[in-house]
């Protein structure tokens, strides 16, 4: 039998264009084969497209929401242990509540009820007419804060350093009100404020009602209360679609700020509305030796939220990155204070803030 010789030129097709193409390709031998191999692989692996349901129907939207959360939410195991949430069972239960003819409001209600099972303030559905949420972590709890009374401590001649309002109280205690971490806060702002408050014997940082904002701002404020780099917690994120697909824990350190740093006792006043970046701020302050947490447990929210969307265009916000404390314990449901204090109605009648008064007493004892 005749052995095929690869080096022999093949007969060319008779037709013009093909003849030219073969004539061009045939002497290249391995180059042509390699090229065809790459093209084959290319077409086999081609088309990187959507994986979630795309149908803009009640069923399509609920399934997309469930799957999106199933693949990306970072607290399923923790919520199963703490709340008994079985996400597969949740899916089955809420699918039964759907009907093909339901309107947007009805679908929104079902979707919101489904995500509310997770009891996470960072899990929301955003539609043009409403924000789906579960804020029971603070709505069902005492607020321990009266804005008009807290403002009376600031009076009219308080200072403003970016998002911080501050005042030296009569007993030479500095009082700093931090309502939000949303607006920009720089080292210069905090340094200048602390320089003005430097003669004070102690400092109160009141973060009640602060529902979070930028972690960078929280870091910036906390960094003015330490002289050395300290471990404050760990962070990790999802690396895949499985409930337990996580990256290794990465240690988070609080580094001392370059500007003015506070050296005297500090009391941080908290309530259940302290959430997200504020929860993180409290976590960092809790690691410092001269800081006392006073008030109520914080609201938690230790997952950094990401956003995605549903076929109908509603946004979906969910916790994607986990932050735990330095003992690797979850702070998703809040941080307990060192001294639990609730607002006393007798004090309220006298227009006194029980928590601020208690903080002042602690600072005077510490001097």
């Amino acid at each position: 039998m005749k052995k095929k010789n690869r080096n022999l030129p093949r007969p060319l097709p008779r037709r013009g264009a093909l003849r030219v193409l073969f004539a061009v390709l045939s002497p290249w031998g391995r180059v042509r084969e390699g090229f065809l191999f790459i093209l084959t692989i290319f077409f086999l692996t081609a088309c990187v497209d959507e994986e979630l349901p795309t149908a803009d129907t009640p069923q399509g939207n609920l399934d997309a929401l469930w799957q999106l959360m199933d693949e990306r939410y970072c607290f399923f195991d923790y919520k199963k242990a703490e709340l008994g949430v079985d996400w597969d069972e949740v899916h089955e239960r809420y699918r039964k509540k759907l009907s093909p003819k339901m309107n947007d409001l009805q679908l929104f209600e079902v979707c919101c009820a489904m995500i509310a099972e997770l009891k996470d303030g960072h899990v929301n559905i955003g539609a043009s007419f409403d924000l789906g949420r579960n804020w029971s972590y603070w709505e069902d709890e005492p607020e321990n804060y009266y804005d008009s009374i807290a403002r009376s401590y600031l009076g009219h001649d308080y200072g403003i350093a970016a998002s911080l309002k501050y005042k030296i109280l009569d007993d030479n205690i500095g009082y700093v009100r931090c309502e939000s971490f949303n607006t920009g806060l720089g080292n210069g702002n905090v340094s200048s404020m602390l320089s003005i408050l430097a003669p004070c014997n102690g400092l109160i940082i009141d973060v009640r009602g602060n529902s979070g904002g930028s972690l960078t701002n929280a870091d910036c404020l906390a960094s003015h209360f330490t002289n050395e780099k300290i471990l404050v917690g760990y962070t990790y994120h999802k690396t895949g679609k499985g409930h337990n697909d996580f990256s290794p824990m990465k240690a988070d350190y609080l580094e001392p700020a370059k500007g003015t740093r506070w050296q005297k006792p500090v009391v941080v006043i908290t309530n259940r509305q302290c959430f997200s970046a504020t929860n993180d701020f409290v976590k960092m302050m809790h690691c410092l030796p001269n800081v006392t947490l006073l008030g109520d447990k914080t609201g938690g929210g230790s997952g950094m939220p990401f956003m995605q969307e549903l076929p109908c265009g509603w946004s979906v916000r969910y916790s994607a990155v986990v932050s735990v404390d330095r003992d690797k314990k979850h702070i998703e449901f809040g941080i307990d204070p060192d001294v639990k204090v609730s607002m006393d109605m007798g004090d309220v009648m006298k227009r006194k803030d029980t928590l601020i008064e208690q903080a002042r007493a602690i600072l005077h004892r510490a001097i």
Partner: protein
Amino acid sequence: MIRLLFIILTITISSCAMAQEDIQTKPVKRLLVGFGSANVMDTYLSPYSYKHKDIRLDWMYEECREKRFEGVGLHFATMENMARNVREYDFGLYIHSAFHLLRRHIGRFDMKAGPMGYLYVGGLYNERNGNNPAQARLSLMADLSAMVTYDFSLWNKSFQLEYSFDIPLVGVAYSPQFGQSYYEQFMLGDYDHNCIFAHFINTPSLRHRLLLNFPFFDKRWFVGYNGVMDQSKYNGLRYHSYSHSFLIGWKL
């Protein structure tokens, strides 16, 4: 990974350096602009394609020599999601340099092929997202580049039809991890497989183009089609950018 980066850089630089041999030949310099459709999906930002109320604009400057084909380009695209309530903006800068070391000239056909170094820097911005509002794109790839030209005459004027394509073969690319935030990467310095070994299986992409080169008044003009099919799937994230553009250009 460092070794891989070294290999890719070697291929890229050598394709540029080898092309220096070709520097003596007079280049055909041309400027091309394009407009067309865009269809972009990046599951870091959204699980769905943004392909409605879309437009893509391209600008390219290229130099073609006998063996060398170089260019720099910019593109910008904007498109909406399927519910038409959120917009994304896609933009990028790319520089490529190919050395067509294989060449066949048969009749009026001229076929060239060889390695190409392709650097891409760009981003995709979603106007609604909070902690994941944008995705940065950075890659350095060694591509396979090929070009076929066909010369012909009509009405005593010379025309040229040109078809070219390139396929990324191997390289390095940047990508965040599936659920990793930019805060972790840039504020906490967290590295988690963000430098990816990209190849034609996890980056099955194709860019191709058909151009007609024709004389009009005293200039030579180009019209044609530009198709881009950029795709990737790594770190659990899926990305595609499909575009079909009409090109018009002129020889400089």
